């Protein structure tokens, strides 16, 4: 018959603990200072009367005592036999023997003060310490006499949800401060106890129930904050320095410069505002001579042209713009065809070229058709002023012109009557009467007209045209070249008046003809 007292059912969780830890049979443990419980488990369900449990303390000469056994069924097929000693003695070896049907099955020698299995620590409380990453754990030590100073504890803690728990041991004190915890994290903590092994020894108690507490949130360390600020400032400064030192490069990449042909065309944009025609008309580059008439007009200076022969009177020439002459291109062509001595056509010209204008004046003397101006036509017997490019030969700057044949030369005023001397100097003076100053340099006008090459009657007077665009006439081109030459010569004279010898006389009137 099995008698299972209620008191004997205590703490069988502890018993199962023992089964895992204690290899010897019977397993004995002391829950307090005055008890000892021994048990063993056997397959089957035999009556405890089949067994005999005897024990004897070493220092007594008495015979061994017997312990009353109780039985408990465990896990269906097993039976647990339990002996609870009525009184115990500590610090003295105890000899235990178990007999089954008179046969010794177990024997064990143990010290009762070495087999303590106590209750888990009670009243486990966890509080914040007021400092970062810390928690304080407190519990009650076992209320056994003489045990308070002989205990060691183990604390296990882990963040909620984590399975990686850490353990800390503590001796003789019933509290501990956990360090290096994660801030603002909920921790689960539990505690167990065990005699320290010096005076008393035993098994680990069962774990106390889990207790949770949250760690305080992290504070921004002032030092770390200051360091972060300093580092970010340094980085900003570095990036600014880099940007500034490479700003031109970066600007070029981000905002590429639109190429400008400014450097190839001197003054095109600055002086003439991008007006290509006008810029060409200045004669600076002279790639195309033709658009000279497109150039900005210059007010011509008044010029009085006098002729010694056939000129009835000095012909006052009123200054007027070229285009006021109103000569058309067509008229020019006509004149040329006629071989006209009388032709002077003033093409529409917007250019400057005072010499052009002069020549035109001269050559249009026999053309009364020009309404707006008082030109005097020149009779064939009249003397003409011939401005020959050859005069330019003296100046080296005219070397490109030297390539030009005489026939393609600029205007040539032929003397119809070589016999009629024309006072060149008069002409000169005429030409310069409007101006001031004297002629000093080489100019074609200085040539005695006898030296003027007479090309023959086939040569016509110069026609001033707006040629470049219109015509391919050799005459025209000749005319044009003559114009250029004339211009050059004329400008040369004018230039002579200028005290500063800036350019070579024909320097900036050099045309490159094509």
């Amino acid at each position, binding site marked *: 018959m099995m008698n299972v007292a209620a008191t004997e059912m205590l703490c069988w969780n502890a018993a199962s603990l023992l089964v895992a830890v204690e290899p010897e049979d019977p397993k004995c443990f002391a829950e307090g200072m005055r008890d000892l419980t021994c048990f063993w488990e056997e397959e089957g369900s035999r009556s405890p009367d089949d067994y005999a449990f005897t024990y004897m303390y070493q220092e007594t000469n008495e015979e061994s005592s017997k312990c009353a056994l109780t039985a408990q069924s465990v896990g269906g097929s097993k039976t647990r036999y339990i002996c609870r000693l009525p009184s115990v003695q500590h610090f*003295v070896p105890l000899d235990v023997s178990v007999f089954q049907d008179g046969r010794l099955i177990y024997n064990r020698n143990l010290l009762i003060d070495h087999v303590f299995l106590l209750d888990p620590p009670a009243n486990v409380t966890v509080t914040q310490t007021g400092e970062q990453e810390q928690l304080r754990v407190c519990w009650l030590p076992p209320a056994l006499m003489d045990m308070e100073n002989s205990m060691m504890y183990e604390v296990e803690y882990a963040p909620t949800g984590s399975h990686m728990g850490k353990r800390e041991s503590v001796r003789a004190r019933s509290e501990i401060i956990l360090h290096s915890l994660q801030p603002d994290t909920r921790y689960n903590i539990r505690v167990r106890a065990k005699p320290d092994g010096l005076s008393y020894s035993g098994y680990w108690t069962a774990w106390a129930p889990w207790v949770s507490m949250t760690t305080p949130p992290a504070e921004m360390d002032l030092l770390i904050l200051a360091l972060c600020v300093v580092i970010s400032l340094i980085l900003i400064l570095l990036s600014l320095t880099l940007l500034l030192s490479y700003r031109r490069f970066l600007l070029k990449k981000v905002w590429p410069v639109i190429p400008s042909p400014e450097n190839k065309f001197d003054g095109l944009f600055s002086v003439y505002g991008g007006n290509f025609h006008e810029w060409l008309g200045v004669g600076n580059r002279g790639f195309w001579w033709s658009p000279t008439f497109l150039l900005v007009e210059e007010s011509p200076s008044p010029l009085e042209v006098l002729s010694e022969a056939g000129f009835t009177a000095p012909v006052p020439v009123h200054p007027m713009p070229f285009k006021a002459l109103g000569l058309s291109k067509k008229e020019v062509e006509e004149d040329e065809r006629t071989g006209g001595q009388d032709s002077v056509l003033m093409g529409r010209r917007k250019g400057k070229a005072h010499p052009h204008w002069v020549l035109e004046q001269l050559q249009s003397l026999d053309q009364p058709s020009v309404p707006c101006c008082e030109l005097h036509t020149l009779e064939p017997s009249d003397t003409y002023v011939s401005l020959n490019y050859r005069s330019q030969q003296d100046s080296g700057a005219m070397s490109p012109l030297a390539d030009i044949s005489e026939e393609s030369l600029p205007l040539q005023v032929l003397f119809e009557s070589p016999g009629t001397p024309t006072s060149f100097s008069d002409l000169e003076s005429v030409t310069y009467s409007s101006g001031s100053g004297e002629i000093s340099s080489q100019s074609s006008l200085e040539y005695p007209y006898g030296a003027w090459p007479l090309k023959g009657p086939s040569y016509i007077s110069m026609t001033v045209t707006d040629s470049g665009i219109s015509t391919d006439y050799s005459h025209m081109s000749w005319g044009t070249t003559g114009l250029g030459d004339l211009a050059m010569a004329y400008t040369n004279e004018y230039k002579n008046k200028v005290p500063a010898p800036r350019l070579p006389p024909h320097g900036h009137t050099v045309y490159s003809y094509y």
Partner: protein
Amino acid sequence: MLQAKHLKILLLAWTRLGLPSPLRPICDPRVLDRFIKEARDTEFAMRSCSEGCSLAEPLSVPLTSVDFAIWEKGDVSEPQKQAQEVQSGLWLLAQAISAVRVSITSTALHSLLDNSHSNIHSIGQVIRSLNFPEYTPPADGTVHEDTWRVSSTLELFRVHTNFLRGKVRLLLSHAPACRRDST
């Protein structure tokens, strides 16, 4: 070891001074814990004792068993008796150790035995510091209390350890002199 020696020097110094005033109570449990630990080490060393570890004749040793039910009663009613019991037991042990030292040849064990002997002496000093009446060993070498007989050094030192762990420790930890201080 070092700590124990320092403690012994202190104790000897005090006792030799022969100051009439009572010794300052030594209530620190770590003092005795040190002695207990050394006694355990000696006991473990005796397990490997091969020569001369069997005693020719049995030696008397004190009883070590403590029944807490009885002890608590006796602690209240007869504290002096307990002190007497402890002191006589220590004396017996000292005698036994001295006797064993003669028969054991191993020098390593000799040092352990000497240490144990001096420890027992120090414990006596500690007990005296706790205002317990001084113990005068019996002239005839027998004690009134019950004794036990051991026939091997291993047993002897086992008893030695148990005695220190049990009765001596209880006496010291429950000494009235210390209890008054640790309120």
